[in-house]
């Protein structure tokens, strides 16, 4: 048992901290969110320089070969600073699918370019919304998937679609004939896109041919992403709590700081406990996707974590605003942006109800 960060993790965390302090203050973030693209090429480049884009990409493809555990510091920083660059959709999800399901040629042509920041990916989960039909040697895929995170910026889409009652994965260029994307500005300041495919041809060499079931690869990648977003949630919760505690100590009413009132103190304590419980479950999720071989235990642990983090996101976000009073709702206050991100995280990769169902369906032994 050991919950301390390794030396390598501490170094990564320290470099992320310096990067955020230098490049990603609240004002800088506002400018990025308001910009035309909604993310910063300079920031993306800086993340590549720091090795963050290759953090979870295999070493033989120019990455650091880390797992979810190695990404915890980064995810917490993304949650804390509300970084809107599409690290999670591109590196956390889509590149993982390529690493797990791609051919050697696909991996070596794509992954090094993700790691060095010259290629962005996004994952289009269309296993029920997208259908393929055969046309000669090629498949043609049609359908619409809404609100795909990072698809606005992606140079390649990793698309899951249904073909003859099986789920398949393929690489699709957003500029392919028949493909169109409509960029979206989301509640939490991130960008996404509606992706519409109309008879888009999928060449044979664009298929990601997993040796295992494609569905298993997707499930595993989404569990990985779920564990990561749990860690991001912890960073955002910690940030909201720090802002709220600071406000309780400085805001004066009735001649005293409002933190002198026991009714508010006890609520702040409960938020602190929420953070600790969420942190414990994020640790469980991240270590499970990295270390647990048995899929049932992995799924159960990840879903348990997502339920707990979703509950904590709701409670902490709502209470933060309440304890800030009207100021908490102001666009000028960072906490209102953290609120929005926490609202999204609660539902990202499945809300509490969905994960409760998944957790309960696999009951048997104790978790862990």
């Amino acid at each position: 048992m050991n919950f301390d960060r390794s030396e390598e993790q501490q170094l990564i965390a320290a470099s992320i901290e310096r990067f955020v302090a230098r490049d990603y203050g609240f004002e800088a973030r506002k400018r990025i969110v308001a910009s035309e693209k909604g993310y910063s090429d300079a920031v993306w480049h800086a993340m590549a320089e720091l090795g963050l884009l290759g953090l979870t990409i295999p070493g033989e493809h120019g990455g650091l070969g880390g797992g979810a555990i190695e990404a915890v510091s980064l995810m917490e920083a993304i949650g804390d600073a509300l970084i809107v660059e599409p690290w999670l959709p591109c590196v956390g999800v889509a590149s993982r699918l390529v690493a797990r399901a791609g051919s050697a040629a696909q991996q070596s042509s794509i992954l090094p370019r993700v790691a060095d920041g010259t290629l962005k990916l996004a994952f289009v989960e269309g296993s029920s919304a997208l259908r393929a039909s055969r046309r000669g040697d090629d498949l043609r895929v049609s359908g619409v998937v809404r609100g795909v995170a990072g698809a606005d910026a992606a140079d390649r889409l990793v698309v899951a679609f249904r073909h003859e009652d099986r789920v398949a994965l393929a690489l699709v260029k957003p500029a392919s004939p028949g493909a169109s994307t409509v960029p979206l500005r989301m509640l939490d300041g991130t960008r996404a896109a509606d992706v519409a495919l109309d008879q888009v041809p999928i060449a044979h060499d664009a298929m990601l041919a997993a040796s295992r079931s494609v569905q298993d690869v997707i499930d595993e990648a989404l569990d990985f992403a779920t564990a990561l977003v749990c860690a991001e949630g912890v960073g955002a919760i910690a940030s909201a709590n720090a802002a709220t505690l600071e406000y309780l100590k400085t805001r004066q009413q009735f001649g005293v700081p409002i933190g002198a009132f026991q009714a508010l103190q006890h609520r702040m304590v409960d938020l602190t406990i929420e953070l600790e419980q969420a942190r414990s479950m994020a640790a469980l999720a991240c270590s499970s996707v990295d270390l647990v071989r048995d899929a049932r235990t992995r799924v159960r642990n990840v879903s348990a974590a997502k339920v707990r983090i979703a509950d904590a996101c709701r409670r902490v976000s709502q209470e933060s605003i309440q304890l800030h009073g009207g100021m908490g709702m102001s666009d000028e206050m960072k906490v209102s942006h953290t609120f929005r991100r926490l609202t999204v995280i609660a539902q990202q990769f499945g809300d509490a109800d969905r994960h409760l169902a998944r957790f309960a369906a696999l009951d048997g032994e104790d978790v862990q």
Partner: protein
Amino acid sequence: MHPPMDLEYSADERAFRDEVRAWLRANLPSALRDKVVRYAPLTRDDLLAWHRILAGQGWIAPAWPREWGGTGWTVVERYIFEEECGYAGAPPLLPFGLMMCAPVLLKFGTDAQRQRFLPRIYRGDDFWCQGYSEPGAGSDLAALRTSAVRRGDRYIVNGQKMWTTLAHMADWIFCLVRTDASGERKQDGISFLLIDMRSPGITVRPLMLMDGHHEVNEVFFDDVEVPVDQRVHDEGKGWTVAKYLLGHERMNTARIGTSRRELAQLKRFAAAQRRDGRPLVDDTRFRDRLSRLEIELTALSITNLRFLDALRGGRAPGAEVSMLKIKGTEIQQALTELMLEAAGPAAFALERADGAPLDDPMLAAIARRYCNMRKTTIYAGSNEIQRNIIAKQALGL
């Protein structure tokens, strides 16, 4: 070198856990285990029987210094031992002698006091209780008024203690008493006395609770003579002793092992109960509450390990113990609540009016248990007091 973020016990710790498990399987009497699992009240003999079995094995006081019988276990091993005992359904160890009076004697007592009391506590010769709360001093403990007036080599004690757990079984009581009422702060002028329950002038009156059991008492002191050599630490320094005990709280305060066992029990029970022709455990509304409770318990078990890991790394536990108390007791209560709802209205039949035993005494025990466990968020520093501690110590509010 550990891998980072390792949630598992080490190989040595797992071997230790297996050893404890095997020993419990072989040495925990099934009659005692059955009583614990069925929520039956434990007698003084039950409690002492288990105490003496552990003493015989040398495992009754792991945290004590080795010279007094401690095991020399690490904090993690101590935690594993306590959680395994809880999971196995062992009777609880009463903390008053082992975990409260003894640490106080070790820290503040004289050699003579240690020689006199520690071996007897270890062997289970004396059954101890705790004289803290009074009618006017609950959460505001320092408002206590039970007085001790020095007369020669004795104190004359007058007053009343309340909510005294198992005083009716106890041989000794350790008390906070007021030796000086003239102090500026109410925390001044308090002293810590060890009092023989057989002393003339002590009356124990049961306080019957809503679960129908006799667990707590009022203890009246009427000109009770206490030799001065039964005062621990200096006169007027009782509050220092009380605060030391607060900081000496145990890391098993969340009682994860016990709650894990009760959760497994609840699952089996809910699988056997039927609602609308289906097992209750398959009812989505019930199932969701059960799942959330299990998830909260899992989270707390990891939180507990994280705090333990920090403690092992040399960081002193402070507000962490308060968090464990709050969450642990909330979970304990929620377990009894779900159990009560799983049992349904049949659980409200406490006994047959003609005195014959009920067909299923477990059902009535569930209702009594639900009532009894309301105590957990009130005792040992109410959860509101725990929140005050966290607000002050951890948050600086």
